[in-house]
């Protein structure tokens, strides 16, 4: 992956303060991207983010890529009859004039094959691919394993 060295440098030199970065592409706003620290690199990491579609055309998140993991996928946690499972989500709808959250207990990015353990305070880039808007990269803040969401000034908790 061509951005690997740059990304590895970013991970190693990441500041402790949260970036709380907001990026836009077309009518989409992507913000509050966060992840949880992992114990070692053997366990999968997780990716959460909030996407707002201010436009009048439905879009969909169809994939994610990151130098931090060899096999990132979109998942949806489903609790049916009290049993939790995590099926693969082919795409996550981002309807016109709506706000969609990848958040604990719902849609999430599953980061399998981590290249390194995710350390609290670090950050790493994730590139989101949308069906219509195309690709956009956001920096993801790694919070503690206990975290329930980012502590950005404008974050929806």
């Amino acid at each position, binding site marked *: 992956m061509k951005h690997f060295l740059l990304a590895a440098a970013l991970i190693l030199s990441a500041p402790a303060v949260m970036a709380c970065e907001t990026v836009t592409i077309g009518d989409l706003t992507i913000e509050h991207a966060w992840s949880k620290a992992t114990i070692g690199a053997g366990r999968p990491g997780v990716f959460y983010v909030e996407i707002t579609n201010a436009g009048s055309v439905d879009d969909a998140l169809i994939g994610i890529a990151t130098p931090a993991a060899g096999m990132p996928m979109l998942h949806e946690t489903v*609790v049916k009859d009290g049993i939790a*499972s995590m099926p693969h989500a082919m795409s996550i709808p981002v309807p016109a004039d*709506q*706000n969609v959250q990848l958040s604990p207990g719902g849609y999430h990015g599953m980061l*399998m094959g981590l290249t390194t353990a995710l350390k609290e305070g670090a950050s790493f880039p994730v590139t989101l691919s949308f069906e219509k808007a195309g690709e956009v990269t956001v920096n993801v803040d790694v919070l503690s394993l206990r975290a329930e969401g980012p502590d950005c000034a404008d974050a929806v908790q």
Partner: protein
Amino acid sequence: MLGVGAYRTRKQPTRSDLLPVPIGEMTWTLTDHLGRSVRPADWAGRPVMVFFGFTWCPDVCPTTLSDISLWLEELGADADRMIVALISVDPERDTPDVLADYVSNFDQRILGLTGSADEVAQAAADFRATYRRVAKDAGDYTMDHTAGVFLFHPDGRFVSIIDFHEDRRFAVPKIRRTLS
């Protein structure tokens, strides 16, 4: 704007034929994250809160343990006598040492429990919990598992289940009812 996917809605209460048996009628033996053997009789006279999960789980399990940690913080010293345990449904990977590392990230009152495959199966049967191994690529796997949090009165009676991601306004009073 409408919020989509923020929190899943709660499911119906578990059917009564699938309720856990009283702690005193359970027959499992497990090992805690410090390597000590634990049996149901060790919990006699204590309120109990049990959750099934596994440490390779990135979403449901840390979220539930974060919720439990917040509930315990809100309850403060009132919950000190409570037995709070995560029972691993993935004993192949979740050894006592692995569990020790994991539970150290959450409220210190949370115990990690594991055992042999048969021991875990017996515990799940007693709690009427289910789990299933789901194969993924390259020999990797994940686990589907019962996501609710089981509550028991100090006399061992099953009280209720806190469903996944249940609002703290409902969860904390449910727990409080087991502490008296």
